[in-house]
């Protein structure tokens, strides 16, 4: 079957984007309401959780991996210690919310500059130290973080090994959406109305639970909405950054550092900026993590998390924005589902209890570098290109037509990771 060719910018392309985007949003809403109670799938006698809690966690991870995309994927610097900034953001948020009663989202105005500046400072050695050495230093920093927050001197802020918990949740949905803060029990909110509306559908209505949402479910839904908005905002910002002048400079540095310097790109400022942005995104991810989990504890930010982020980066696709999201879901759900697999035919039970998920991720990571270096996103794009191809439109000026023709030839189907991100 020949692929259908759509010209970018045409009405057809606009309709296509509207339909795909609309279906995506609809699927997301339906999914959210269907799995708001900790629902699970049952396959071969094992229960697999699909709950919103894990999705929220994946969103937090996705923001952190987005930071890795900026520094590793787009700038080509092997700064692998993202868990350091993830933890830093998480602790700052937990501290401000728990001890100073700030609202969660307001803490971002501290988290983002703090992580940005620390990231830039730690990025200064990277101007001299390249490649593997940088990987070594940053992984070392990631290894240090848990012992840093366990320090006695900081225990007033971090609460030592026990972790800083945000005892009182401040994520109650606002009045127009959910029950609000002072609403008496049993108030029917707009979220309830929508859930009940979904329940009225024949056949499929049963998937959406029964009756109004509990306050816990409403809170979960509100978290999902907030985190999704944060993720969308971050993706939008990163995609703008990548397509702007500094972003092009970053990609030039990645592809050929000497060439970039010769073309007048300031290597030092480009790399430092990339470090700052990546670290700030790591911090925002940490904030999102605390919003969901409600506690920042040292071992959640151990070195192995930094390595998991790299797994997410590679599995999703290095140098793609959507890859960050795909990768985050993989690193959340693979360990989770593998630990929920209590029994499988053939495989002895002993192999299912323990860090099976990490083994799968480690093996998958190696396998993927061999068979699919571009990650899942590249595979999806290759598959999609068999059915729908979007090619740049031909400009109207006759002198430019020839140039555009050439562009069509080179805008191949399976351009590897260096391809521009096409949406989220």
């Amino acid at each position, binding site marked *: 079957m020949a692929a259908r060719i759509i010209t970018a910018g045409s009405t057809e392309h606009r309709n296509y984007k509207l339909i795909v985007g609309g279906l995506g949003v609809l699927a997301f809403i339906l999914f959210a309401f269907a799995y708001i109670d900790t629902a699970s799938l049952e396959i071969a006698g094992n229960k697999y959780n699909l709950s919103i809690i894990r999705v929220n966690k994946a969103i937090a991870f996705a923001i952190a991996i987005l930071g890795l995309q900026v520094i590793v994927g787009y700038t080509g610097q092997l700064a692998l210690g993202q868990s350091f900034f993830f933890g830093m953001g998480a602790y700052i948020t937990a501290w401000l919310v728990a001890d100073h009663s700030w609202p969660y989202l307001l803490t971002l105005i501290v988290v983002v500059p703090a992580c940005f500046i620390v990231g830039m400072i730690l990025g200064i050695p990277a101007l001299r130290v390249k490649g593997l050495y940088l*990987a070594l230093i940053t992984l*070392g920093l990631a290894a240090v973080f848990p012992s840093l927050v366990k320090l006695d001197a900081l225990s007033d802020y971090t609460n030592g090994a026990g972790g800083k918990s945000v005892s009182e949740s401040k994520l109650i949905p606002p009045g127009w959406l959910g029950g609000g803060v002072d609403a008496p029990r049993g108030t029917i909110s707009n979220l309830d109305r929508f859930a009940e509306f979904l329940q009225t559908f024949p056949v499929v209505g049963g998937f959406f639970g029964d009756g109004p949402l509990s306050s816990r479910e409403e809170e979960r839904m509100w978290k999902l909405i907030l985190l999704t908005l944060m993720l969308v905002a971050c993706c939008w910002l990163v995609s703008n950054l990548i397509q702007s002048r500094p972003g092009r400079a970053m990609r030039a540095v990645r592809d050929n550092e000497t060439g970039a310097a010769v073309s007048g790109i300031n290597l030092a400022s480009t790399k430092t900026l990339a470090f700052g942005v990546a670290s700030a995104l790591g911090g925002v991810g940490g904030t999102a993590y605390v919003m969901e989990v409600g506690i920042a504890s040292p071992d959640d930010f151990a070195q192995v998390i930094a390595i998991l982020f790299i797994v997410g980066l590679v599995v999703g696709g290095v140098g793609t924005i959507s890859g960050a999201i795909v990768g985050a879901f993989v690193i959340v759900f693979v360990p989770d589902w593998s630990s929920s697999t209590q029994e499988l035919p053939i495989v002895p039970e002993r192999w299912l209890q323990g860090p*099976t998920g990490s083994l799968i991720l*480690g093996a998958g990571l190696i396998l993927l570098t*061999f068979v699919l270096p571009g990650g899942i996103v590249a595979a999806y794009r290759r598959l999609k290109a068999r059915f729908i191809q979007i090619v740049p439109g031909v400009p109207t000026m006759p002198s430019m037509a020839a140039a555009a023709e050439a562009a069509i030839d080179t805008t191949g189907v399976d351009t590897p990771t260096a391809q521009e991100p096409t949406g989220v």
Partner: protein
Amino acid sequence: MQLFLQRVIDGLTNGSAYALVAVALVLIFKATTLINFAQGEQAMLGAFFALQLWMWGVPMWGAVIISMILSALLAALIERTLIRPFDPSDHLPLVIVTLGLFLGINALAGLIWRFDPWRFPELFPSGVAFSIGGANVTWYAVCTVLSAIVILGSLQLLLSRTKIGLAFRAVSSNLESSQLVGIRVGPTLQFGWALAAAVGTLGASIYVANPVLSIEPTVMLTVLVFAASAAALGGLDSLWGALAGGLGIGFIQSLLVQYAPFIPTELSLLTAVVVLLVVLFFRPAGFFGTAAVERV
């Protein structure tokens, strides 16, 4: 004074174990300019092999030697199947593969031996060998330092006196030229990996044989940071530099804990990272390494 001497001896003991893992890193770096992030985990797996063999009734040193051979074979296999297919100058895929190995080997050990501390049998006689100025030097300390020196010495002999050692040095000094004079580069690098794994296994076995330590799958996570720091301090391509760096890092760690009360014990890892940072920033070639010259 007595306390100072005691700390120095402790530092030297730990440092020798770091030095052995650092030597493993250096061997691979010399050959391929790659830092093997899975080195610590490979060494941990080797030490577990030794433990398992010992539990099956093999005499202790026999178990260590068999497990050194086993991990050398495993490393040769890893090099052939997972490392050689990639372009050595493109770092990202290689880093990813070694990190995948890191994650995979750690999980595998966790699956087989669980995340419980195991008592590792004592490799060296227990008790105090002698004392200097009131500080006790245990047999463990004496033997650890001695075995680091012996291993380094025999590696030096191996590399300078044998044919494969000559080939290894040729490959690490110039890969393409050595290919042109007929050295089979692949098997030589494979030999480097196997050698590194064997030395790393011995280092890990000696490290966990410390009477105050036990072996568990996470034991090498911090050791790798110390070892990498030691290797960088000595210069990533110098064998004796790795020994000096290992002893130096052990020294700094041990003295800081004692004499810098504002640096708590938990932060000794941070000192290793800071040393790494300072060395790479001011003297990227370390103290004994050769400075890299790059032509653009």
